[in-house]
């Protein structure tokens, strides 16, 4: 299990990086933390001709909190985001979710942007970005563009990023209003990819009645889907809403697949149970927010 050979590039600036990507496109692949990519390389399931290592782009090693959004640069490790107190203060969902991403040693190296650019349908951060209606910023020699999460993910392991584009950052907006957000998942082993995972954001009005509820999932379909659950619970008091109905609504709209760890039926059942649990918890959080 040793990777095939590749031409190696280690640009020192973002400008250099996009220049290299343009030059080698479409045969280039960006290497950031490598926690998803290097296993594929070691197993020779991927063998890009060119590897563009962005680990020197320290200008992208940041977590910025800017009022109502958290922006994460492409070289911020999961652990940097997880342990960023300012980010936690405005958007605790990030830390709460990151604690479910593999194990600390992986989070020490893996980057949040990298896992989003990898677009694994089992990747928690892809779901969170979609759930929050976040954006990804892409740079190339042709310029910079910002893409909504819903448009960014185009299928399992595929995004709208062109081969010459570098995802330089992602932005997680803080939900507006009186909201609570919760991530929960069931995994076979602690730290494994979830069999089913869901993040739920619940918004309450001033009377603590449910004004809105949205959820997103991992391992429940080819790409992260956001569901609006509001219809099942709108207007109910936060501690009296029929969250089970929200769970049923969610399960009815997801079409998971069987795999070696779980049947589709079990996944749907988990989606129902976990959605209800997470939504109830999120509502309680919103009530004290």
């Amino acid at each position, binding site marked *: 299990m040793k990777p095939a050979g590749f031409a190696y590039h280690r640009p020192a600036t973002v400008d250099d990086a996009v220049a290299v990507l343009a030059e080698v496109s479409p045969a280039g692949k960006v290497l950031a933390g490598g*926690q998803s990519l290097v296993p594929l390389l070691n197993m020779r399931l991927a063998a890009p001709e060119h590897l563009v*290592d962005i680990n020197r782009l320290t200008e992208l090693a940041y977590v910025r909190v800017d009022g109502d959004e958290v922006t994460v640069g492409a070289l911020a490790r999961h652990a940097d985001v997880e342990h960023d107190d300012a980010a936690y203060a405005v958007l605790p969902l990030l830390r709460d979710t990151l604690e479910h991403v593999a194990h600390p*040693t992986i989070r020490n190296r893996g980057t949040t942007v990298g896992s989003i650019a990898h677009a694994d349908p089992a990747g928690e951060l892809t779901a969170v970005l979609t759930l929050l209606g976040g954006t990804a910023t892409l740079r190339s020699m042709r310029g910079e563009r910002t893409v909504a999460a819903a448009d960014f993910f185009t299928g399992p392991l595929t995004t709208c990023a062109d081969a010459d584009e570098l995802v330089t950052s992602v932005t997680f907006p803080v939900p507006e209003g009186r909201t609570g957000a919760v991530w929960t998942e069931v995994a076979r082993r602690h730290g494994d990819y979830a069999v089913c995972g869901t993040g739920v954001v619940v918004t309450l009005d001033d009377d603590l009645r449910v004004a809105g509820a949205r959820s997103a999932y991992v391992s429940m379909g080819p790409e992260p889907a956001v569901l609006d659950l509001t219809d099942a619970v709108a207007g109910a008091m936060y501690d009296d809403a029929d969250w089970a109905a929200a769970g049923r609504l969610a399960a009815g709209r997801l079409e998971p697949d069987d795999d070696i760890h779980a049947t589709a039926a079990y996944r749907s059942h988990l989606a129902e149970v976990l959605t209800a649990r997470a939504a109830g918890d999120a509502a309680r959080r919103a009530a004290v927010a």
Partner: protein
Amino acid sequence: MSAAEELYEVSLVVNGVPRSATVPARRLLSDFLRHDLELTGTHVGCEHGVCGACTVLVDGRPIRSCLQFAVTVDGAEVTTVEGCTRPDGELGHVQQAFRECHGLQCGFCTPGFVTTITAYLEENPAPTADQAREAIAGNLCRCTGYQNIVASVLRAAELRAERA
């Protein structure tokens, strides 16, 4: 492929000692340490980042050396299990705790545990038993059933405090 691969000089400070070797870009850090620097304490159990046997500290943080190219971490400070001893060469606190608690059997996974726990205790000097179990949850051991490794974490915390 018949053309020779481009080579890179990679310099690291390993366990406080500057070391360098010239290797292709695809040389994994685990292989660089083991075969180029002949520091074979770091072990390779899966080469896909799951077992944790290859865990080393890069600039103080535990990482999987099988998921890094040596060239990527050129210039870094690396600590391997060989560097977890006391300055006089005696067993370090984590190593001593493993010995006292029978925290190892075959010893193959052990270096990854020792490095992981060493870094963990720097951040969390007095873990509970549950936290100790959680702290080692990213490393696989097939021999011990982990119970004595959990005990080793707790004992290492005591020894560390005593030696401080």
